């Protein structure tokens, strides 16, 4: 599972290694994906309501 992506002789001090960047990227995407849900009904309704000609701003 460990992928050797660090190039030999390359300093790892200043920049994050590719391994670290890959791990961060994977964690970030996984976090974000878990927040993705189908649009809640309130937004489906809101868009439908706003489409009616002459409809008023429902937040008011």
């Amino acid at each position, binding site marked *: 599972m460990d992928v050797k992506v660090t190039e030999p002789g390359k300093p790892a*001090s200043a920049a994050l290694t590719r391994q670290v960047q890959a791990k961060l990227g994977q964690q970030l995407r996984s976090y974000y994906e878990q927040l993705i849900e189908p649009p809640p009904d309130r937004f489906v309704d809101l868009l439908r309501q706003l489409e009616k000609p002459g409809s008023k701003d429902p937040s008011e």
Partner: protein
Amino acid sequence: MTIDASLKDEMLAAVPSLRAFAISLSGNVDRADDLVQETLLRAFANIDSFTPGTNMGAWLFTILRNLFRSEYRKRRREVEDADGHYAETLTSQPEQSGHIEFREFRDALGKLADDQREALILVGASGYSYEETAQICGCAVGTIKSRVNRARHRLAKLLSIDNPADFGPDAVTRAVYGRDDRA
């Protein structure tokens, strides 16, 4: 107000990611939903300034990001948010195995500076390019690159994954690749 049905479809299609972005920024589902609602209302009110054929998602993200920034500045004057309050009311939590990692990551994300967090999420999760992210945040591409870079470093430290040894390479691999040969 009437609006082209296809534009409405584009808006609705953008909502899941827009909402995930709002939750990531605010750490609070209720506030995120309010932000999304306000964003959609503003988008409708200003639909004439949207160019059909361009990226509806990016346009909505821009509106939401600006709303969050102005609202946040206002709120911060009222009450200083403690670290621990971030994402306190986040309800969309996964079960079991991924739960701890999710919470750990969410808390670390909450400790980043706002400008770094938004840049990192847009580039690393929402799928926008550095150029698009720069447009959404109203700054230069170089600024975004530097914010993303700083965000990654901070996150790596917070999550204690800034050391390659954390990935458990075997001794030989470590000897070959993991040596500390600072230039």
